[in-house]
């Protein structure tokens, strides 16, 4: 049973307040991040061969994608509850449909949901 502090739906995310323990070490212990090697691999695909990636860039994006997953899941969950459904399925696919249709998909993503 995870007890990681998750932001409630609707409130701001990215709350990194911590008086004693670093949020990173805390979250890492909870397996709240995606493996940084995988993230690095995806990033490298988008870069010219001579471009390097600093460690802080990888860690920043690692943190960011966890927030991204939480955000999208939260929005979809709101829809499911509004429609009395417990399984998240159709709305996630609609998200991807938006992604694939337009160049500025990620901006549309947030307005669309």
């Amino acid at each position, binding site marked *: 049973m995870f007890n990681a502090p998750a932001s409630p*739906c609707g409130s701001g995310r990215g709350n990194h307040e911590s008086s004693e323990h670093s949020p990173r070490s805390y979250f890492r212990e909870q397996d*709240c991040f*995606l493996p940084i*090697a*995988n993230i690095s691999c995806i990033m490298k695909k988008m870069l010219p061969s001579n471009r390097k990636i600093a460690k802080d*860039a990888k860690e*920043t994006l690692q943190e960011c994608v966890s927030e991204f997953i939480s955000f999208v899941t939260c929005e979809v969950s709101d829809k499911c509850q509004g429609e009395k459904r417990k399984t998240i399925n159709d709305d996630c696919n609609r*998200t991807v449909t938006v992604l*694939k249709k337009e160049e500025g998909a990620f901006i549309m993503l*947030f307005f669309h949901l």
Partner: protein
Amino acid sequence: MMDNVGGSSSNIAENSGIIREQDRLLPIANVGKIMKQILPPNAKISKESKETMQECVSEFISFVTSEASEKCRKERRKTVNGDDICWALGSLGFDDYAEPLRRYLQRYREQELDRANNPPKRG
């Protein structure tokens, strides 16, 4: 380099043909865990949703990285750093992400500096 690629199965998605294994680079178990944390205890997540989120996140990483890389190219720098990522998020309209991550990045660097000044004792 560690080769820890998860999500080994490949699927045929309706609209985009075969999704290659390498397009599902992020482990589906980790994705599922993060999704679960934000949901009510009785909520369930279908496998298809996790796979969709996997793909979505990979696209997101590629999108942000590409934007950051372009900034580096214009400034004739070879290394993409955390500030470039934050800038790219703002540039792409994800302002809600950019500001918290800047604060995160600042604390991350303070932590790194602290670690450098106080190497952990071993043995």
